């Protein structure tokens, strides 16, 4: 059976105690998106400032458990300064690590390890510190905590792609 040390790695607790990119951005010009985990009440508000095709700045507010908050903090450092395509690739890679392979109706899978590196013609994405969240997979009910900020970012990016920026 997995133990607490699989879940609460030091780097996770560090991001929980000292969250990066905490704060707000002025909307507009920034865009904000809020994500909820209705099961536990966790909540993340994400502020994204684009510069052309690049995530120029990202800030976070919200409340939640160590897993949801540290994942959000690590996510913000991982995608800040990246292009939209790179950010999307990082989301896919992270969700693949969380064992979430989004099924398309045509049966093709999005986000598996195999295609994460190939999609959009991007180079291999490195998760770096985020690898520390791998242990969450052993605690299935906590996966939603870890993916909350990522789903919120995906929604924000979807929105930004549909509007003229």
């Amino acid at each position, binding site marked *: 059976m997995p133990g607490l040390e699989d879940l609460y790695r030091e780097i996770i607790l560090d991001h929980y105690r000292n969250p990066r990119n905490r704060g707000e951005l002025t909307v507009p010009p920034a865009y904000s998106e809020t994500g909820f985990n209705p099961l*536990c009440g966790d*909540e993340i508000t994400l502020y994204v400032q684009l510069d052309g095709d690049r995530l120029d700045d990202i800030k976070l507010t919200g409340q939640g*458990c160590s*897993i949801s908050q540290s994942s959000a903090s690590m996510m913000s450092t991982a995608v800040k300064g990246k292009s939209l395509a790179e950010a999307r690739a990082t989301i896919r890679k992270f969700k693949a690590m969380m064992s979430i392979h989004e099924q398309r109706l045509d049966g093709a899978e999005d986000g598996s390890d195999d295609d994460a590196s190939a999609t959009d013609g991007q180079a291999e994405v490195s998760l770096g510190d985020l690898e520390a969240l791998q242990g969450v997979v052993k605690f299935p009910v906590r996966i939603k905590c870890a993916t909350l900020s990522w789903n919120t970012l995906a929604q924000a990016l979807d929105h930004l792609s549909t509007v003229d920026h």
Partner: protein
Amino acid sequence: MALDPELIKKDFPILDQQVHGRRLVYLDSASSSQKPTSVIEAMTRYYETTHANVHRGVYAIAEEATKLFEAGRASVARFIGAADISEVVFTKNVTEAINLVAYSWGRANLGAGDVVVLTEMEHHSNLVPWLMLKAERGIELRFLAVTDDGLLDLSRLEETLDGAKLLGVTAVSNVLGTINPVRELADAAHAAGALILVDGAQQAPHLPTDVKSMDVDFFGLTGHKMLGPTGIGALWARLELLEAMPPFLGGGEMIRDVRLDGFSTNDVPWKFEAGTPPIAEVVGLTAAVDYLTAIGMGAVRQHERDLTAYALVTLRERYPDLVLHGPDDADRRGGVISFNYKDVHPHDLSQVLDESGVCVRAGHHCAKPLMRRFGVGATARASFSVYNERADVDALVDALATADRLFA
């Protein structure tokens, strides 16, 4: 007579196991209780010897199944002090019981501007059905506030009830443990010309219940919180109310006659029980009621009150930083203790406690408005039933030390 939890524990096979190499300490009965062998065996025996559809077949096992099913209704009626067996309508749970009232009585009696009074401590199941009616036909909702120590603020009770048609209130808060003064509320509601609906999910399993002396109009209970199976609960309502109410779900069983141009309804309570009911679950609920009755609800209450008092004192002594929500006085609360510890998120607390085999709930407990009232996103919650003992509380208290080590 005092209840012996050591002895009672032996009746619950699930408790005789280890998780993470530690004794399973189950402290989440407010969410769902465990089941004694007698309940499990009654359901198995029913399926092995008696199962057939009820109210239909004329053969022996069908008659026996119908007899068991209706005997279950009588057991529940006796358990809550109903005047008439027909006043007990089987539902899936309290959620369905309240929805039945909102859809049937509500849609027949409430229109734009009509007032329903609820409280800030209601479970979502006693909020959302009324919010739906508000959205659908513009009823007005008013709320009794909750004081800082977790009691209903009754200072403006009369004023709030003025002109209201219904007061909906939980008998015991599933978050704060608060035991609400239901009789006083019923008297105030009736004086204002309103009916009173009581969410009994946390009362029926833990306190002696008598709907007559409480003088309420609607009362919901759910089986799985009172040692019975999931998927079975009941709505109790005064007979004349049920008789006047239109049917809720349509289908088989609830009709007297059906023509291609219309239908007439069956008698109460079957008028509200469309479709084949959960028969084995009624058999299980009957066994649960028998089990609780054999212990005696007075003894159940005394045991859980003492355990709650012990837990409140022990937790406070060991962890002065622990924030305990709800009334300080164990006489005013059921066996439910919600808490927050320093900045540790309840999910993390619950995860850490699990490592020690201790099961507590973490989250908003389907009471988000109450979480907002107390300025927290979530709480951890330990809750007791007949099978819990002081050693379970001690295990909780000891296990909390790990949270200190990891997060503080």
